[in-house]
């Protein structure tokens, strides 16, 4: 978990890791991809290995839950015959399969985030980046999403989550905690920070 005040650089770290932003100095390595040496036309290869979850979900409002996930499977060239079954499997994995035919705007915030997580898992990523994924959710939904993250993490996917919610940090003490301040790492629960 990555924590810190607003403006501490949490979102910037995630954007750099997803190569949405590029460092003005130095280099960023993510799963073998260097931000300096990866051409713009090859960034899609990284993004199939690194999923991204937003605070505001970024789902397509004019489509159903199933279509939102199927859309991504289609975009990443999943064989057409497999799209429907894989989309349903992903929705089952995130626990929202019963609402697969509902329109996105009919879902609660927590449910929308479940769909967004299902979508992010579509390409079987090795790393999930989550930018304040519980920022817009109530405590019940937050717990549900965090439990989902734990289960995904236990199945072998690394999750780097930015949050400034102290309750989340407190409720999951087993998570490695990174604290940022003004763009610098000031605390790492597993390693000593400093030179």
């Amino acid at each position, binding site marked *: 978990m990555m924590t810190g005040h607003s403006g501490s650089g949490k979102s910037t770290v995630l954007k750099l890791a997803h190569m949405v932003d590029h460092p003005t100095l130095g280099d960023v390595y993510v799963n073998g991809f260097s931000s300096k040496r990866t051409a*713009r*036309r090859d960034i899609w290869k990284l993004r*199939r290995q690194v999923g*991204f979850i937003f605070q505001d979900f*970024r789902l397509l409002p*004019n489509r159903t839950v199933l279509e939102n996930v199927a859309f991504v499977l*289609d975009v*990443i*060239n999943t064989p057409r015959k497999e799209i429907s079954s894989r989309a349903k499997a992903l929705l089952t994995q995130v626990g929202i399969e019963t609402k697969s035919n509902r329109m996105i705007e009919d879902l609660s915030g927590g449910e929308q985030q479940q769909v967004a997580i299902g979508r992010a898992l579509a390409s079987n990523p090795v790393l999930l980046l989550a930018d304040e994924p519980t920022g817009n959710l109530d405590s019940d939904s937050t717990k549900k999403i965090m439990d989902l993250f734990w289960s995904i993490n236990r199945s072998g996917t690394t999750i780097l989550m930015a949050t400034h919610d102290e309750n989340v940090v407190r409720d999951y003490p087993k998570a490695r905690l990174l604290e940022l301040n003004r763009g610098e790492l000031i605390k790492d629960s597993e390693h000593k920070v400093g030179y």
Partner: protein
Amino acid sequence: MRPLFRETLASVKRSPLLTGLSISMISLALYILGLFVLAVHNFYLALDEMEERIQVVAYIQDTATPEHILDLRRILTSIPEVKGVEFVTKAEALQRANRELPEFRDIFSNLENNPLPASLEIQLAPDSRTPEGTLNVVGTISSHPIVEGVEYGQEWVDTFFALSRIAGAASLLFGAAFAVAASLIIGTTMKIAVLARKQEIEIMQLVGARDRSILFPFLAEGAFTGMSGGILGTVLTYVTVKLMSQYVFTVNWIPNSWVLIGIAATITLGVITSGFSVRRQLKEISP
């Protein structure tokens, strides 16, 4: 890659309002351009008709013998500027005057001698219906001994060609302006259509879609929207022509090759402007 046609139809079904508006805007742009092209085309048809009427008339002296007239005909038909020559006898000239000037019929019927001269009506070749071509023919025949006088309506010919030149320049200028305006409307419409789906493009890019996988469906949609708008614009123009011909005056339909060029242009513009808009979005989201 997924069959583009199916993808395109699916996308149209998902956002029928946006697609409908885009097609309407493009068809309207093409309709306005079509009306202008129609006006220019009909104007030029009228000019062509008027141009065909350009002729030189050589009045023959009464003393001329048939051999003299035949000789003059031979000279005239050997000139490349001349398409055809028609001999009008004195009697035919009087008949024509009777027919065309009924108010003088009494005078014509009381004449003791026919005062009207015989003439040779000279039709000019299409390329020679110019002031220069006309003067060449006039110069060749006016000095011939049996020619009493030559008439070709110099003032009318000069005015006609001045009018043709002005019309040519004006139609080129306004045509270009209309074409640019129509292109801008089509371009802006496609840009708005792409902008409305910015979020979709962003999601596609962030989940690892290749740029070309994002681009191709939009290009196909651009082609579909351009083609539909082009066809609808053509239909609207055609209906207008039919209605005008039925209720106002006869309007000639434009050549089919022009119609095909118009539709091909809307398809091309739809594809190009969609492509540019999507590429811009892609670079904006992930520079």
